[in-house]
């Protein structure tokens, strides 16, 4: 493991939770939610947790609880069926499936709420005071935060097996990277996420880059959009 250049922890609300990550993986891999291949999904889930750890994203403990649940289900599915035939055997995945379905239902419900005519967003009464005054911390990203992770993963995969010669370690800071990105983006107006990295890069470059992008999103200095599912992620300056 690379030693950490500084003690940073990233706390991001955009990674909503373990169920959200699981649903994302199921959708992305076009799996049947009623028949989840536990082995496969566990592996994927752990890969993504690992990546989030590389990024020092502060993971809620719940992510680990679900990881443990997945491993438990995996183990239970390996146990041969009970010898007593009368005993009804419950699919060990059932509880998790139900939770995912329930969660998905409310995610959809949230989408429907969001489609309603919202006061001070879609419709305004007379008088211009605002009722929902608390500073909004929402991140304006149309592309899913997990999609960013997918992009990050593909870059990591690309970096695998590449010969890296260690000479001098030039540590660029996240702040520096932010400046680089802003400079490029202000000239080009929009850039594809994948092209942010230089020709030759180290793992540290990748980590610094994605942290810079996430920070810029949080500060709303850039916006992030994906034209089609799993397509390129475009970064651009909001109007």
């Amino acid at each position, binding site marked *: 493991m690379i030693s950490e250049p500084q003690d940073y922890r990233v706390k991001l609300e955009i990674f909503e*939770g373990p169920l959200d990550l699981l649903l994302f993986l199921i959708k992305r891999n076009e799996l049947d939610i009623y028949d989840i291949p536990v082995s496969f999904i566990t592996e994927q889930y752990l890969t993504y947790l690992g990546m989030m750890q590389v990024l020092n994203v502060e993971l809620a403990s719940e992510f680990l609880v679900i990881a443990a649940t997945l491993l438990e289900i995996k183990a239970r599915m390996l146990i041969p069926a009970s010898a007593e035939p009368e005993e009804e055997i419950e699919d060990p995945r059932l509880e998790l499936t139900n939770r995912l379905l329930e969660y998905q239902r409310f995610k959809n419900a*949230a989408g429907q709420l969001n489609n309603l*005519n919202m006061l001070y967003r879609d419709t*305004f009464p007379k008088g211009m005071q605002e009722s929902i005054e608390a500073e909004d*911390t929402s991140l304006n990203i149309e592309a899913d935060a997990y999609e960013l992770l997918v992009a990050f993963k593909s870059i990591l995969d690309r970096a695998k097996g590449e010969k890296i010669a260690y000479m001098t370690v030039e540590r660029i800071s996240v702040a520096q990277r932010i400046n680089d990105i802003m400079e490029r983006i202000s000239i080009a107006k929009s850039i594809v996420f994948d092209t942010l990295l230089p020709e030759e890069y180290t793992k540290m470059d990748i980590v610094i880059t994605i942290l810079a992008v996430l920070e810029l999103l949080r500060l709303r200095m850039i916006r992030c959009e994906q034209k089609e599912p799993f397509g390129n992620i475009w970064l651009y300056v909001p109007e």
Partner: protein
Amino acid sequence: METEKLIAIIETLIFASEKPLKVKYIEQVMSVIDLGELTIPGLLETLKAGYASEESGIELVEVAEGWQFRTKPQFAEWIKRLNTVRPSKLSAPAMETLAIVAYRQPITRAEIDYVRGVDSGGVIKTLLDKRLIKIIGKKELPGRPLVYGTTQEFLEVFSLKDISALPNLQDIKQMSSAEEELERNQTELPLPASEPTDEE
């Protein structure tokens, strides 16, 4: 009195109020007038229809059990250009939590956490601060946990007439009821509100 004039009175009442105006207040004010065959709800509908045309940028809407004039959604972009309002938005976790509260109220924090699979303390506080949800009581469970529900402001913000106007309310409630039943059987044991004991 002519119908036109009655409608005009109602129009002024709604225009002059700060908050969505309840029908009962309109009825109170106008109780001195003999309406004959006409009713306030009927007159409201006529007034509403009058604003429906393309020529008007505002509309009369029924929200939070009252009536209010609001701009039509298709002109929102223009109002934003005025730059005097900060458009309000809710984060995805806040929207999700709000949906859970709205569709499953009354609901405890533990139940919200379970559905979301993640701690919801921070988001619940945000929603309380924005007055979109409130504490509506305590549940008859060990520890007497607080239960949350949506507020009048919630209805106003989401342009809902009342809580039954939530989209697909029945579908979502029905689908959840089976699981709720399960939870109830698990949790509503007559345990003393002390330390949890092992199952026998």
